[in-house]
């Protein structure tokens, strides 16, 4: 049976390095969780935790003093808070794309990256959720956004995109958590059965809910997983569409555009894949997982990043075209203001990061080097933040009436809270890789040759 697979004939690296069995895959992935903590983990987690303190201090001072400590004022009432919110939410989208959409498309290579990409989604959504809440001014009244019967007889205005956002983001967070947990159950059973300490057995056993791998259970489980993937797919598209409505439903030049929903969704996937690569490249090195997260994964993700990057570049092009084609002087001015106004540096840097830098992926040499791909991904991370900065700030600072123009820049507290959420994100991520299997063990077993032989149905064998 030394016949080459179609992939190998095309010179593609394998999805899993050869020679693994269900037993060895299980041992290798569960060992990361069950053996002693490596020393570097303490350093990495410690630094992230330290960075997170910037968030705690920033938010504490914000609650004490109010949103006046930020750079927002008239006319730029939306600053870092909304920029960071959109940035983080967008990053989350790649996790759902990998776990749900690639599952429906039967992309086998998703198997070894879906678990931590989903974890990344959850943590990114948690970071995103911080911003609208602390921007409320009176964050202790955040629950007023939810429809609930109250003595004031008040109900939210369901025609407002901001309320749509509440529904979209809270549904997204909940469904992502459900999907993630369901995926974890069989692996929790594995950890329950493999850990030697009693308290670990109890904790993992509690999370496994008594899972024992009965054939009937697997059947219902697979149906549930597939249905969740089918539900998460339209959901993830709806979330960034609704986020884009926050802008597109408004009448400010540069926001009021029908291209916003698809352009935002593509940007979200673009940013998300950049972040998955930013995490995957160092993690596979640190935990020696090159056999599971192979060059195949790095290359495929880089290609998705390039493709969505081109869609985003097309979005920029259409924005430029529409500004002139519309014949609307405000639209035209908005664009010229982006190119040569006070924030031109941001605009040109965004083109460099989001349009120029990803073109390096066309070169096989760049695609085949994890750290070069990592470098491109870092450019995209920065570029997508700049994109949201340009959208929010250039339009608000110079809208219709010159008498109400102004300028905007983030204060040190804006930066502290933003950098602090990166600390929160990394802290959660390091806790995750230490305490939960970062690669789905049971799904890895299904893509091994041993499982393939029995999975093959007679009709498939003929083909």
């Amino acid at each position, binding site marked *: 049976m030394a016949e080459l697979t179609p992939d190998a004939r095309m010179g593609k690296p394998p999805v899993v390095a050869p020679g693994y*069995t*269900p*037993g060895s895959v*299980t041992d290798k992935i569960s060992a990361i969780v069950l053996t002693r903590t490596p020393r570097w983990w303490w350093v990495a987690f410690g630094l992230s935790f330290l960075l997170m303190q910037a968030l705690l201090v920033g938010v504490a001072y914000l609650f004490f003093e109010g949103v006046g400590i930020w750079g927002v004022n008239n006319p730029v009432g939306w600053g870092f808070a909304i920029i960071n919110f959109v940035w983080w939410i967008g990053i989350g989208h790649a996790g759902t794309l990998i776990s749900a959409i690639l599952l429906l498309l039967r992309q086998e290579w998703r198997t070894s990256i879906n678990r931590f990409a989903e974890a990344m989604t959850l943590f990114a959504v948690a970071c995103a959720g911080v911003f609208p809440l602390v921007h409320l001014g009176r964050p202790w009244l955040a629950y007023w956004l939810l*429809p609930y019967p109250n003595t004031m*007889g008040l*109900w*939210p*205005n*369901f*025609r407002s995109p901001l309320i*749509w956002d509440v*529904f*979209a983001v809270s*549904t997204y967070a*909940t*469904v992502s958590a*459900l*999907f993630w*947990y*369901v995926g974890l159950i069989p692996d929790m*059973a*594995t950890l*329950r*059965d*493999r850990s030697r300490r009693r308290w670990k057995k109890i904790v993992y056993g509690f999370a496994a*809910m*008594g*899972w*024992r*791998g*009965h*054939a*009937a*259970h*697997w*059947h*219902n*489980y*697979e*149906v*549930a997983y597939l*249905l*969740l993937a089918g*539900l*998460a797919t*339209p*959901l993830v598209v*709806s979330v960034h569409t*609704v986020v884009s*409505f926050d802008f597109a439903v408004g009448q400010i030049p540069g926001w009021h555009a029908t291209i916003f929903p698809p352009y935002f969704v593509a940007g979200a996937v673009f940013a998300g894949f950049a972040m998955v690569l930013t995490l995957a490249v160092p993690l596979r090195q640190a935990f020696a997982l090159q056999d599971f997260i192979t060059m195949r994964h790095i290359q495929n993700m880089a290609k998705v990043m390039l493709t969505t990057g081109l869609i985003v570049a097309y979005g920029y092009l259409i924005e430029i075209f529409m500004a002139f084609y519309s014949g609307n002087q405000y639209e035209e001015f908005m664009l010229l203001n982006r190119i040569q106004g006070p924030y031109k540096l941001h605009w040109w840097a965004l083109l460099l990061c989001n349009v120029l830098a990803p073109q390096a992926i066309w070169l096989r040499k760049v695609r085949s080097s994890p750290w070069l791909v990592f470098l491109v991904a870092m450019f995209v991370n920065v570029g997508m933040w700049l994109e949201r900065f340009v959208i929010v700030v250039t339009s608000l600072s110079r809208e219709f009436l010159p008498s109400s123009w102004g300028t905007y820049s983030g204060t040190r507290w804006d930066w502290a809270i933003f950098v602090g959420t990166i600390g929160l994100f990394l802290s959660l991520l390091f806790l995750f890789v230490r305490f939960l299997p970062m690669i789905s063990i*049971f799904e890895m*077993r*299904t893509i091994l040759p*041993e*499982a393939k*032989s*029995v*999975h093959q*149905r007679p009709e498939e064998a003929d083909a």
Partner: protein
Amino acid sequence: MSRFLTRDGKRLYGLMAEFDSPEKLVHACEAASEAGYTRLGAYTPYPIEAVWEAIGHHRSKLPLIVLAGGLAGAAGGFLLQYWASVHAYPLNIGGRPLDSWIAFLVPAFETTILFASFAAVLGMFFLNGLPQPYHPAFNVPRFAEASRDRYFLMITTKDRNFEPAAVRELLAGLGPVEVNEVED
């Protein structure tokens, strides 16, 4: 209540055979079904459709539960908004109609997904009888390997045809690594 006892004099729940390859388990499931046993438990470290087909499969009821959840979410989400905007708190926003149903579609879509997802997860738990804190299968120490790389077939005493000697003989003839008694 089991009529049979283990060798140690405890109540017997069933007999469990351990296999080291999925093909052997599939074959064993087919053989046990053919021999007339119906209360079979087949345990695998990853989903194997052939096993499910061999022990008498039926279609999962889950899709219907999810459909019901989704419809409830759609109707509930839309009616909540309609009632709140038209009856409970009519608010004139720029002269738009109170029943701005197009705007209500967005939150209603989200509640559809939310309810359908909860139905999928809770429905799966319900159909599988989870969470289940105790199951006799775990009394066999080797069963810990069912979540690694071993495949198990259990025939329980609930089966009408259960007779320890006959079941043991059947299982032993199917090429198992070992056959164990399962304490209740």
